[in-house]
């Protein structure tokens, strides 16, 4: 088990190294960053001084090693646009994005699993068919459209919910949270639904399909022949077997929830990392773009790792094969 975790961790570091190369190469291929920093009429001597102060006159391998060593310590240089350390900017924005992503995922998991189980067990009811229809909409409508429709309905027409921003936030050390104030919670509702809707429909369809599959298996038939209660069979035996693929998908989707929060954050002007990234792209602020790339891949890789480990917790068969393989 430990060896398995370690091997996975080493693989993860390998992936991060490769992403680091890509992130670093952005600096080389996106034009001369000095042009972005200084104005057009800056004399050459001054440009050289800036270049030297940023270490951009060193040989490329030296720059890369320095970049990577810094990145490993979460130092991503200084933003061209804000003239502040990128790590500070990201840290400021991260709580907003993570809170949004977690709320969206919780929303997606809870409602997705409930709806999935319901539509598998009560396949022929009107509600189950309605869920199926709604899930089709959720899967096919683009995120920004859902966001805009929600804003139109609940913010503009009904005026129940704020159309943009995080509302009031409370500072807890370096973390800022909108979960403790009413306006913060209200501001969270629409972005979470927008971001989580796709995941929710995905999970719902997955749970439904898996559940129907599991209910046909021999061990469910045998559980019925043993006279177990319907509740024990559905929620003890069938649901647990259903959840294995759901954990994988939901876990991996958490990465994309963070990555795709860019769109939701733009629609709702949510002050998170995604919005920062969009602004950075508009201003060719490469340190932020590179750092964002690294952060998102770090999150992805970490989630993959956690999902792999969670798997072995849920499924005893994997524990055995893993044990034998090492």
């Amino acid at each position, binding site marked *: 088990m430990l060896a398995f975790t370690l091997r996975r961790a080493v693989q993860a570091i390998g992936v991060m190294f490769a992403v680091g190369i890509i992130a670093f190469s952005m600096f080389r291929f996106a034009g001369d960053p000095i042009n972005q920093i200084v104005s057009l009429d800056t004399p050459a001597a001054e440009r050289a001084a800036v270049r030297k102060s940023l270490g951009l006159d060193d040989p490329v391998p030296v720059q890369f090693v320095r970049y990577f060593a810094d990145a490993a310590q979460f130092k991503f240089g200084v933003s061209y646009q804000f003239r502040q350390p990128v790590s500070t900017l990201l840290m400021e924005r991260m709580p907003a994005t993570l809170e949004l992503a977690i709320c969206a995922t919780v929303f997606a998991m809870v409602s997705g699993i409930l709806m999935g189980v319901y539509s598998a067990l009560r396949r022929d009811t009107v509600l189950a068919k309605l869920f199926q229809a709604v899930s089709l909409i959720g899967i096919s409508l683009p995120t920004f459209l859902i966001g805009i429709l929600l804003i139109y309905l609940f913010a503009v027409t009904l005026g129940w919910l704020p159309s943009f921003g995080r509302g009031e936030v409370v500072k807890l050390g370096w973390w800022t949270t909108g979960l403790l104030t009413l306006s913060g919670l209200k501001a969270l509702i629409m972005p979470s639904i927008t971001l989580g809707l796709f995941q929710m429909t995905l999970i719902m369809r997955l749970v439904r399909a898996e559940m129907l599959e599991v209910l046909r298996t021999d061990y469910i038939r045998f559980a019925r022949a043993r006279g177990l209660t319907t509740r024990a069979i559905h929620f003890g035996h069938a649901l647990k077997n259903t959840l294995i693929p759901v954990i994988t998908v939901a876990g991996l989707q958490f990465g994309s929830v963070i990555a795709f929060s860019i769109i939701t954050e733009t629609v709702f002007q949510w002050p998170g990392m995604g919005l920062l990234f969009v602004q950075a792209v508009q201003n060719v602020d490469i340190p932020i773009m590179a750092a964002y790339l690294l952060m998102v891949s770090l999150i992805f890789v970490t989630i993959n790792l956690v999902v792999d480990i969670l798997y072995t917790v849920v499924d*005893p*068969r994997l524990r055995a094969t893993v044990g034998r393989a090492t």
Partner: protein
Amino acid sequence: MTEPILSVRNLQVEFASRRGTLRAIDGVSFDIAKGEVLGVVGESGAGKSVTGLAVIGLIDPPGRIAGGEIRLAGLRIDNLPPEELRRIRGKRIGMIFQDPLTSLNPLYRVGDQLIETIKTHLNLSETAARRRAIDLLAEVGIPAPEKRIDGYPHEFSGGMRQRVVIALAICAEPELIIADEPTTALDVSVQAQIISLIKRLGRDHGTAVMLVTHDMGVIAEASDRVAVMYAGRVAEIGPVQDVVRNPLHPYAKGLMGAIPTLAGDDKRLVQIPGSMPRLSAIPRGCSFNPRCAFAFDRCRVERPEPLPRGTQSVACHLYDNVPAESAA
């Protein structure tokens, strides 16, 4: 005569399909006495397994019991509400399925599945249920049961898993065990062990056993009586010695003739020509008549009813001494 544990009368099971209703079981009747093992043989699709599932009330839609009655120790169970039927399943009727590899939930420890079943049917505490689970595992011949109880199904071999399945089926001391091809998925050396285990359990606890199989060897070895099924009907039923040595129904004759002997005579095995009809195309009259060497006119129009013949009972016009001219 004491009341049989299981009494099935004129059972009919139908499956609704797009092309109309298919009758999988058509008028099956048999009894199983306390401590008796009834073997049920027949080709695939003869309705053996469906009969077993009907008895335990696990016919799923689109299938349904369309007629007849099933009585468990006198109590009619085929029309019980689902919740009452559930209480009988596992408690008074245990079932063993064909494939031990897929009968156990892979995510739960063997002990958890046993304890869950025990606590569902018997009013026992967790510790008492665990105690009983260990005793059950010991009874079905699992070595070191106090250790193995915490194992997961994948840690057991096929034969051992079938023993666990049997332990699960008998954990509330049912009066009847339905064993649906319990040895088919196992290799031969393990088959014998499982068969003798089922026999021993039947003897020790007085449990009635309905042993569904297509393996005549298993039937001859394990059962007291045998029912030969063909196309959803019982062709012949009787004590196993009599039916094996002196089969009456032409189909049973063919079936017995197809068993290889070790005697060494080079006789070719008898083959029954043709194959069993599909449910959608069961012929009029006796369903065996197109394949029967002895078929005569009456067989093609009138369905034979079971006739007592010594210890046996056979559904065949050959044994009906009174020819019914008016039947056509």
